[in-house]
């Protein structure tokens, strides 16, 4: 198959082309076009096709990771949303969980009130009520609904969200409201809570459904236009999109539930990292994707993605109760600015110099020292090798910024200050990685740290010993690992339903069992229907059952795997076991004697895609080819807590061969990334071209005495 993955970032759009039969891999990087991301994308695809000497019509698939939906939320420029809800509950979105983002502030705004997804004037109620057992207390009045819909039409909303209380137990009222909306106001984008997310917790559900309506019209427009453009170019399959749950969705699915694209952006990086790990024989990976302003951190054990806790599934300040891969983003990147605050504390980030003015060394007017300036001052980035020698770096400006803003006030040397900036950032990343690894019960010693993005390989080797991972893995193309991730993803959908049953009841009560069976079956049927629409062969489909469980009386669930097959005592036992394990991992405690409640059930439906075959690099000897060594120069590394000068070798990554072994201090550069091998570390090139960077005591000793 001939496939293209497109990852649209804030600054660059990364594209990768793969021909599975020929084993061809081509990459392309082009500046993003934020006003209309599809411009850069379509242009990039055209260029890649030219490079590959194929016609667009030869392409079998185009996969796309997009921040379009995320940006609509963050820039708050979505649709004008109208909401129809149960009488007495007009302000669920306004009250939210009645908790302020900040404890110590009179000045803060509540984002959901200051920048509402649906303004109060467009939140209308209808007199109806479904009770906690699913029965109807107050029946719906069609005439009232019609009148409210007409009001919304008159108010010129673009989208209508239908959010009634307890609709996850009984959707008949919501269905009827939706039908009336379709009759009265066919142009509106409709988002119905029992369809988008039939799950309990009204604020979270309403917020998700309103967000779906908010991003819906624009995302649909974008997806459909992009799809049409591709088809016009001759791409028969159109576009497929990355979802927040790390699945790929068809344009049709994306248009119905655009809310599922909200975290499309950073997830491809984790998926790409998992693939890179698998290629290198590392099923357990922690992924670190460092860009200019932020770093994304993910973790996967046995190659399996983890999902976020529902309290954490937010987009900006808005709650979105959708399955999201657990990725943490912190404000630490190459552009992070170092400064001394008014109380005398040394800080780095989260403020960033961004693309403009950028680091001081770029000579675009920046005078504040960034992490990149610190790294330049340490001699790790050199002008002649940076971005293939295409961008001039002013070492003097970098040093000056570090010296005047940090070194002098703190009475440090320039190198001490530069190393300090680097170390503070390393520590923020270590902290964030620990947060998602060891603090969630994963043993970092069993994991490889996959360094991605332009900056990941700069930081990873210093992070590795702090976190305690086995080693660092730098994939072949660290800068486009995310784009690559897209091509390794399967078609994935997730369907969910609130069950709210006790495990003991499932065992003792035949009726509960059959209800649960039916609910699972209904979700599975829905999934299979989607695959028919997607024209995916049944044989390629795998269905997984998941439950959100908690101990009786607890308030928050944990997501655990459940078995397929008949729901019986054995099934329940297995679920309980999985849950006890998960609870112990998360909270270091288990309560075997307490009953377990199954709050929600889920079906994760996977339509297998062909995957990606790893390429092989030419085999060499232990010593890298002479031509790969570009220069030897002084660079500064930490020695006994202080910066010390080391003779350092600079290699070109693409000229390294499988089996090559490099002892630090060394710097390995490639077009879009730079890998640092500090003194005491070694780097080995595996047969697929991955760099494995390890700490070695023997090399450390040699490095110290050799100097």
């Amino acid at each position: 198959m001939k496939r293209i993955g497109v990852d649209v970032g804030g600054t660059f759009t990364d594209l990768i082309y793969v021909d599975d039969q020929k084993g061809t891999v081509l990459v392309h990087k082009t500046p993003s076009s934020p006003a209309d991301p599809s411009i850069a994308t379509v242009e990039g695809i055209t260029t890649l096709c030219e490079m590959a000497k194929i016609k667009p019509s030869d392409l079998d698939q185009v996969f796309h990771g997009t921040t379009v939906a995320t940006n609509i939320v963050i820039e708050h420029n979505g649709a004008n949303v109208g909401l129809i809800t149960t009488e007495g509950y007009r302000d669920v979105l306004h009250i939210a969980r009645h908790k302020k983002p900040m404890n110590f502030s009179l000045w803060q705004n509540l984002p959901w009130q200051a920048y509402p997804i649906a303004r109060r004037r467009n939140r209308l109620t209808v007199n109806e009520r479904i009770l906690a057992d699913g029965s109807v207390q107050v029946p719906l009045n069609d005439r009232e609904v019609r009148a409210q819909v007409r009001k919304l039409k008159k108010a010129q909303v673009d989208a209508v969200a239908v959010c009634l209380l307890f609709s996850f137990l009984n959707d008949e009222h919501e269905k009827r409201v939706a039908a009336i909306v379709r009759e009265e106001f066919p142009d509106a984008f409709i988002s119905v809570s029992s369809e988008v997310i039939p799950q309990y917790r009204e604020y979270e559900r309403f917020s998700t459904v309103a967000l779906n309506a908010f991003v819906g019209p624009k995302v649909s427009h974008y997806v459909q236009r992009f799809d049409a453009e591709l088809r016009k170019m001759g791409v028969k399959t159109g576009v497929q999109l990355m979802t927040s749950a790390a699945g790929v969705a068809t344009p049709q699915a994306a248009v119905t539930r655009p809310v599922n694209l909200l975290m499309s952006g950073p997830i491809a990086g984790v998926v790409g990292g998992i693939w890179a790990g698998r290629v290198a024989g590392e099923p357990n990976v922690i992924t670190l994707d460092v860009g200019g302003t932020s770093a994304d951190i993910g973790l996967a054990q046995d190659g399996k993605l983890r999902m976020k806790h529902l309290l954490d599934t937010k987009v900006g300040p808005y709650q979105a109760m959708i399955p999201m891969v657990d990725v943490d983003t912190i404000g630490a990147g190459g552009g992070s600015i170092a400064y001394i605050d008014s109380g005398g504390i040394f800080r780095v980030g989260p403020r960033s110099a961004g693309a403009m003015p950028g680091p001081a060394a770029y000579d675009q007017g920046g005078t504040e020292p960034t992490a990149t300036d610190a790294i330049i001052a340490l001699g790790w980035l050199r002008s002649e090798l940076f971005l293939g020698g295409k961008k001039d770096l002013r070492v003097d400006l970098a040093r000056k910024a570090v010296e005047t803003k940090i070194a002098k006030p703190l009475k440090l040397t320039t190198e001490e200050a530069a190393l300090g900036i680097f170390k503070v950032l390393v520590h923020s990343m270590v902290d964030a990685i620990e947060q998602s690894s060891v603090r969630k019960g994963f043993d970092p010693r069993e994991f490889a740290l996959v360094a991605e993005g332009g900056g990941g390989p700069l930081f990873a080797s210093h992070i590795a010993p702090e976190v305690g991972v086995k080693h660092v893995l730098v994939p072949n193309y660290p800068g486009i690992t995310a784009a690559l991730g897209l091509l390794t993803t399967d078609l994935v959908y997730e369907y969910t339903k609130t069950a709210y049953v006790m495990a003991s009841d499932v065992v003792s009560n035949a009726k509960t069992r059959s209800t649960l069976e039916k609910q699972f079956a209904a979700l599975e049927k829905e999934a299979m229907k989607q695959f028919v629409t997607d024209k995916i062969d049944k044989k390629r489909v795998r269905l997984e059952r998941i439950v959100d469980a908690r101990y009786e009386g607890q308030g928050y669930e944990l997501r655990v795997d459940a078995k397929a097959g008949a729901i019986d005592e054995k099934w329940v036992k297995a679920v309980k076991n999985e849950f006890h394990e998960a609870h112990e991992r998360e909270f270091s405690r288990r309560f075997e004697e307490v009953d377990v409640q199954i709050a929600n059930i889920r079906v994760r439906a996977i339509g297998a895609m062909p995957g990606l075959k790893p390429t092989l690099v030419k085999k060499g000897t232990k010593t890298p080819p002479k031509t790969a060594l570009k220069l030897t120069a002084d660079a500064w590394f930490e020695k006994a807590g202080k910066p010390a000068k080391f003779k350092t070798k600079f290699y070109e990554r693409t000229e390294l061969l499988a089996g090559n072994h490099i002892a630090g201090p060394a710097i390995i550069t490639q077009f879009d990334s730079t890998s640092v091998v500090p003194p005491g570390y070694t780097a080995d090139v595996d047969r697929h071209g991955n760099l494995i960077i390890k700490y070695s005591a023997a090399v450390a000793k040699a490095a110290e005495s050799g100097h």
Partner: protein
Amino acid sequence: MADLPEVGINPGKPTRKRVGVDPITLRVLGGAFDAIAQEMAGVLFRMSYSSIIRESEDLGAGLFDAEGRELCESESTPMHIGSLPWYIRGFLHRVDKNELKEGDIIIHNHPYLGASHTPDIAVAVPILWKGELLGFAAVTAHVADVGGSYPGINADAFDMYAESKIYNGLKWYEGGVLNEDLDRMVFDNVRTETMNRGDMEAMKAACILGRDRFYRLLEKYGSDTCMSAAYDWMDYSEKRLRAEIKKLPDGEYIAPTAWLDDDGRNRDVRLRVETKIIVKGDHVTVDLTGSNAEVPTGYNVPFEGSLLVAAYFAIRTILLDQDRLDEPVPQNDGIFRCVDVIAPKGSIFNPNFPRACFSRFNQCQRVVDNTIVALSKVVPDLVTAGNSAAIHFCSYAGFIPEKGEYWLYLEVNEGSYGGRKGRDGMDSVDCLMANTRNNPIEELDMRFPMRTERYELRDEPAAPGQWRGGVGIVRTNRFLEPGAYSCEGDRHTDPPRGIFGGYDGLPAMVRHHKAGGGYEEIPAKVTGLMCEAGDAIQLIEPNGGGYGNPLKRDPKLVREDILDDFTTVELAREAYGVVVDPKTFEVDLVKTKKLRAQLQKKRGRNFQGELLSLVKLPHRMAVSPHTGKKVAARR
């Protein structure tokens, strides 16, 4: 326990050996302390059982030195932040520091020995390192029931012994071994054993986690560096706060008298709160002299665990507003060093043992609100107009014969904020020292024999101002089985103040709707009100005060307010002087200009608008802060 030691004594600056910590390590350790506190709180609220902990996050967690100085504390509910130091100093009167062992777990809730109030139980574990007691990992959390006279809430209790079982520095575990008889004694004497057990297990887990995380830092950096870094950070926070205090002109700033509704038993006897803020150099004193004498019910305030916390909160929130800072100023002992509090012994803010003091939140809120209003003259840009500054903390309970236990639901009802210079007040949100999460209705209705029938913004408009006040909520909860309702609340009589020409807001109100029809307006503080199946409690929360002259509000914003039902066409004309067509909602700018000039002339300079007289809903208990008289509703 009549012979109580003197309390409220700050241990002063640390005396442990200090070493120089380089700026990078200092930064790194600062981040690590903060992360530990947040993580402790995260474990606690995510694994706990009662909704008051897991949804409301009515908890605090952190690390403390051997004298109780706070190294770090979680960002949970502010009412907890800063009370744990006093719990620790309190239980150290009972527990011998020199005999603490690894694996000891201490529980404590004595309100005259540092506790915030009895249901906020503290669990603490010592941090012992190479034979030295470095400090404690400790948490407090509000447990559902503590075995007082009534389930859940005891606003009207005879004395401390009636409101709760008292745990004074007891070792729940000793050297890692459970004290089984104590464990039975504790859990046999509460109405909600299962919930309490689950919650206390979560508290224990959080403490052990905090301790172990701190051990890891000690292993890596050594105790001298870790403790010195902690003390450096305290100095940092102190320095930051003192720098802000120093910017204020020296002087005494006095808030208008605030009135609390009653003590929960003697109705119609309002309680006085007097607040004077004394600024001198880089130090602030909050002086409550002149406030009401202690009361014979549970409506007194523990001095250390609650009142001090309120004063710290007020000063820090106004002067180090998180939203205005470029970088966080960590919460630690340094903040406490800048603020002193005076409350005469025997007053409601410093009661004599063994007065009951179960219900103290509302009084603390009013101290904070008064501090804000008092300082509005010096820092007009940093304050809000008067806030709801109250809570209705409700308990709904009944007995489940099959389980031999009670069902018990605790609910914190939100308020609203006053307007600010440049921003309207926040609506429907936990106010000031409260910052809890509400419970999903869909969860409550499925879990308890209750049904919530309404939960949205109240019908009355926002308090007019150039920046309008926030709007409170209305909520109706119906009992489906017979049960008991208790509540500690306030602010049914005294509305939030408007400032700089803004209108006063609206007070709160609670109605008891009877199953058979009709309703009764009931006081904010109620203990053990029996409800029949079909009875409902309706809570209406205050609207915050307006900020600045409403005649200066942008007419466009007034129009938006009308469209969103935050005000009415009528009120736009009367209070804002904005003429809006009731059909098209277009503003008539010419007429508006004329009307505004007329109104300004008529009102003069010292005009004070009262929203109470402009709304149709009668607030029968309300009293005008300006005339001292009841205010009739609009007809």
